[in-house]
């Protein structure tokens, strides 16, 4: 009698588990970092819900995420040197390693097989197999006669199985070419003082480093690296009257529309508009505070901007035809990051001190949903898997 009962219970369990594990894709999923608790929430941008929370990832301040090319696995780069591979369908950590003492970001290679991490301590880049997280290469960022190690910033992937990054202390840009299997390093020296972040244009052709120590930007044409690093926008930067900068602007979010690039001014309450083709200044748009992220909606018709402390409870929207602010929103205290859905009908915005992520409709600016999160920071959707540089 009991054995029959046991069988019945077993069959019920089996049926239940089959019902639970219905198939689904990951194209409308994403990860939100909860920086203070070492956890992330996996979100669904169609249903506007959180599906899962994954914990146990250490210090996630300034954490970023890249995706495997099948968009199933998220690689989380933590501040404390942790690199974690998460299966976002199962909501579980697949593998986690501590690869350095202090890291700042990472990227995945063109073929999806290599994950590179940029480290502050010890300064350099480490490259891992995306499958196993087994170490493949170490690139120490040694410079000068004493071979001091520089902090590495602005790491991106570039076409041709390359990684490009900047050496903060050394004032250099390096290309690590993995097309032959082993890294071949090309170094560009004296590119400017204190490059603090880098970006690659969406087509993967130009790498641009922002300079904290002087004005202007360092530009490298990856189609013609033999031409060396050029200086562009000589008057971009803090200028003569150096205003305090309470949060470093992030270049990854630079907005590029067909004709314009929109850049955060450093230390000024302005967004700079530049001609994309000749890198000349067109105008500056006055905004609410010092811009941190300046992001174009995927169709390029709007640019969304968030701001540095202490004016960080606000987001503004710029119309890219009129080149002026058309909307001011208050998503909550300490807005840290924004992410558009792949076709741009929604934007997800994290407000750290409000402990919430808001979803806005970008056509009418209505708030569709508020999701409670613990000190949320970066929001990373799976369409990053398909974009050069991330």
């Amino acid at each position: 009698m009991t054995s029959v009962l046991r069988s019945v219970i077993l069959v019920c369990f089996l049926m239940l588990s089959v019902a639970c594990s219905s198939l689904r894709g990951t194209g409308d999923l994403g990860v939100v970092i909860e920086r203070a608790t070492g956890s992330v929430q996996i979100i669904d941008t169609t249903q506007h819900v959180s599906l899962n929370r994954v914990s146990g990832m250490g210090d996630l301040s300034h954490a970023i995420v890249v995706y495997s090319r099948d968009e199933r696995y998220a690689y989380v780069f933590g501040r404390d040197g942790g690199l974690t591979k998460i299966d976002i369908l199962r909501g579980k950590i697949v593998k986690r390693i501590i690869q350095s003492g202090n890291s700042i970001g990472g990227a995945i290679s063109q073929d999806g097989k290599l994950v590179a991490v940029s480290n502050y301590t010890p300064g350099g880049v480490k490259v891992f197999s995306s499958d196993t997280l087994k170490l493949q290469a170490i690139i120490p960022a040694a410079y000068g006669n004493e071979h001091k190690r520089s902090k590495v910033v602005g790491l991106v992937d570039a076409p041709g199985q390359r990684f490009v990054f900047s050496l903060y202390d050394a004032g250099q840009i390096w290309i690590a070419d993995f097309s032959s299997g082993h890294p071949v390093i090309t170094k560009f020296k004296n590119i400017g003082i204190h490059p603090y972040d880098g970006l690659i244009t969406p087509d993967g052709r130009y790498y641009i480093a922002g300079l904290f120590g002087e004005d202007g930007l360092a530009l490298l044409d990856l189609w013609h690296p033999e031409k060396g690093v050029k200086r562009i926008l000589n008057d971009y930067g803090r200028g003569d009257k150096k205003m305090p900068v309470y949060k470093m602007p992030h270049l990854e979010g630079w907005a590029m529309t067909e004709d314009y690039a929109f850049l955060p001014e450093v230390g000024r309450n302005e967004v700079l508009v530049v001609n994309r083709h000749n890198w000349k200044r067109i105008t500056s748009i006055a905004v609410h505070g010092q811009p941190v992220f300046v992001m174009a909606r995927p169709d390029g018709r709007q640019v969304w901007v968030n701001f540095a402390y202490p004016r960080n409870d606000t987001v503004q929207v710029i119309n890219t035809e009129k080149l002026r602010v058309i909307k001011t929103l208050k998503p909550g205290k300490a807005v840290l990051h924004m992410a558009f859905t792949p076709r741009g009908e929604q934007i997800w915005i994290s407000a750290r001190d409000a402990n919430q992520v808001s979803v806005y409709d970008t056509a009418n600016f209505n708030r569709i949903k508020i999701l409670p999160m613990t000190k949320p920071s970066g929001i990373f959707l799976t369409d990053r898997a398909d974009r050069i540089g991330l």
Partner: protein
Amino acid sequence: MVKSYNQPLKQLLMVLALMFCVTVYADDAANNITEQRRIELKNLLLQDCGSCHGMTLKGGLGPALTPEALKNKSRRMIEMTILQGRPGTPMPPWESILSREEVRWLVDTLYAGVSQ
């Protein structure tokens, strides 16, 4: 009856307790900083200073600010760095945002070690 007898006693105790609190706070280096402001300052320290110095203050673009790291550094130098920033580095001056008293409280907190 008992209740009405106790009422003045309770008030007296409360006044005494308040006086005690005020005395304790006056002994503190930062006597004008309210509990609410302390919570804000600690959040600022971990979250905003932490964006360069690491949320655990073990360092990032900026140096580590743990008690161990600050052990051999002069207190005055740290206070001045927070107030006036450090030219040639991304460290901004905070004197337009924080009072001297608040900076002193922050430095006390750093030397004591910040609980997360």
